[in-house]
């Protein structure tokens, strides 16, 4: 087989100058493939954007291409941005995500520092455990968690069900394991000489962490922060299970449950809402793409 291939290749070889042409053809082929995939990947967001610019009347008129916008309007966006309900969703999502990012980073940074540098009894097992936790899907845990918080409410008298803040307690289970895991990687790659030098200078562990590790591992910190934010922003299952009334919903669930109601869908507004809900992660991605991708590829990640 291989020999035959070699022969046929050798037979083709005398056509000098064909290599360059071959490369050009390969490149053209690549671009055609690429165009196909870009269309496949970008069609839904583009179509969402087109729909969001249409009025309900234009959407429901069946003549003409659905891919054209005849009278673009921003009224769908305006309608949502002046709706108190939508702003509440936005505020809930933002508050939760910011709190979760802070909690996650505090827990992860300390844990990762300790697991990467200051071994203690069982620290290797714990690092593996952190990784395993990251593999546990949320869908396995939401029912027992729901029941646990019902039980906690009955015991403590604090309302946990249908309150947005319960999500601040639950989301770290999704973010902390992964952030700890990638931070361990970033911290472990810092040369030991750096902290030895700091110890010789009489630095405490806290000083080593804050004055040596954090500045050096800044890219890792940014990647972890982005991850924590996007995960808590995008989560759908937990708010779906834990919150019901419209003043407690997050943006994703709010759009899915309140804008989609009855038989009359205001598709323009739904699409505008969905795009605005997608905007924060997209903006972060647009500006910090390299950190975002570094976070994705650091250690094999979920997908």
């Amino acid at each position, binding site marked *: 087989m291989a020999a035959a291939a070699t022969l046929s290749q050798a037979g083709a070889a005398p056509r000098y100058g064909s290599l360059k042409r071959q490369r050009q053809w390969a490149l053209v082929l690549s671009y055609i493939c690429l165009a196909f995939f870009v269309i496949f990947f970008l069609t839904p967001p583009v179509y969402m954007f087109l729909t969001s610019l249409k009025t309900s009347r234009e959407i429901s008129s069946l003549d003409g291409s659905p891919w054209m916008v005849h009278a673009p309007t921003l009224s769908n966006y305006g309608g949502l941005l002046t709706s108190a309900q939508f702003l509440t969703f936005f505020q809930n999502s933002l508050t939760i995500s910011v709190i979760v990012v802070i909690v996650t980073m505090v827990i992860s940074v300390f844990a990762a*520092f300790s697991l990467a540098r200051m071994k203690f009894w069982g620290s290797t097992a714990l690092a593996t455990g*952190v990784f395993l936790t990251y*593999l546990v899907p949320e869908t396995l845990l939401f*029912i*027992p968690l729901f029941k646990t918080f019902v039980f906690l409410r009955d015991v403590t008298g604090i309302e946990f069900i249908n309150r947005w803040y319960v999500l601040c307690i639950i989301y770290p*289970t999704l973010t902390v394991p992964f952030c700890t895991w990638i931070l361990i990687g970033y911290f472990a790659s810092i040369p030991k000489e750096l902290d030895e030098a700091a110890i010789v200078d009489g630095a405490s562990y806290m000083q080593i962490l804050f004055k040596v590790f954090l500045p050096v591992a800044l890219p890792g910190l940014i990647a972890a922060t982005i991850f924590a934010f996007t995960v808590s922003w995008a989560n759908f299952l937990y708010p779906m299970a834990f919150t019901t009334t419209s003043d407690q919903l997050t943006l994703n669930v709010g759009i899915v449950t309140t804008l989609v109601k009855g038989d009359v869908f205001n598709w323009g507004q739904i699409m505008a809402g969905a795009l605005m809900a997608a905007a924060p992660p997209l903006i972060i991605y647009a500006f910090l793409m390299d950190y975002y991708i570094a976070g994705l590829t650091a250690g094999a990640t979920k997908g």
Partner: protein
Amino acid sequence: MARATTAGSVVLAPAARPIRSGSLSRRRSLIAFTMCLPLILLIGALVVYPFFYSLHLATLNKSMTKFVGLGNFAFLFTRETFWMVVRQSVIFAVSAVIAKAIIGLMVAHVVHALPAKGQRKWRGMLLVPWVIPPAMSTLGWWWMFDPSYSALNWLLGLVGAGPVPWLGDPYWARFSVILVNVWFGAPFFMIMYLAALKSVPETLYEAAAIDGANAWQKLIYVTLPMLRNIIAITVLFSLIVTFANFDIVRVLTGGGPRDMTHVFATYAFKLGIESNDIPLGACVSLFMFPILAIAAVFILRDIHQRGTQV
């Protein structure tokens, strides 16, 4: 030489240790442990405990007052819908992961073949589906699938193909949820493979080219073996996540038509939260555990191997 010196330092280290006072290292590990304490508490209280609690919940009756042993499982096994969910979960996860892996690999190759200058821009565009929260992009797909205003059917109409009942027909609905999942997940595979492709030494391809390998042979004998590890690990990860998928099925079909697109997660949600039968829901979600455990064993073995290689 190098081995001799490392061996020497290994011998030296234990000898050097007793000079340090024992209390210092004990204090050190106490500090280290304290720093990990929030992590341990979080994982213990909100991951490990709920997991075992769900084992307990699965053995209770609907009002959670009586122990019924494996009664819930026995009940599920008699339900036709449950077996349909099992089948659909397997079909959904396996076909979606295979499609994602193949498309991811293709796109990664195509992007890798581009001149280095333009790669960043294209890569940036191709990752967009992964960045949008899946529940939101699924809304967009839902609208494209809409029976009366379907933009996809309009396009199909241009080439003369009949309107497709994307979400109305159970089998088309199964295809649609897989399609959306592939759309969402393939960019992730692409980014992982692209990173891995960059680490394959160019000299291997040059050697293959000198030996007269064509593009296909380079792929089979050079690229795939070099990417074997990363392919295995992304496929395993994706298998876990796809098996546990909730957002896409929930938004797109809600499990219908005729419960044919339910996967474990959405079925568990329907039973546990919506029908308020928490034990039965816990039962269903526990069925995701075996696949998780198997995948975890393989992933851990891989990490262990990599650890010993380095």
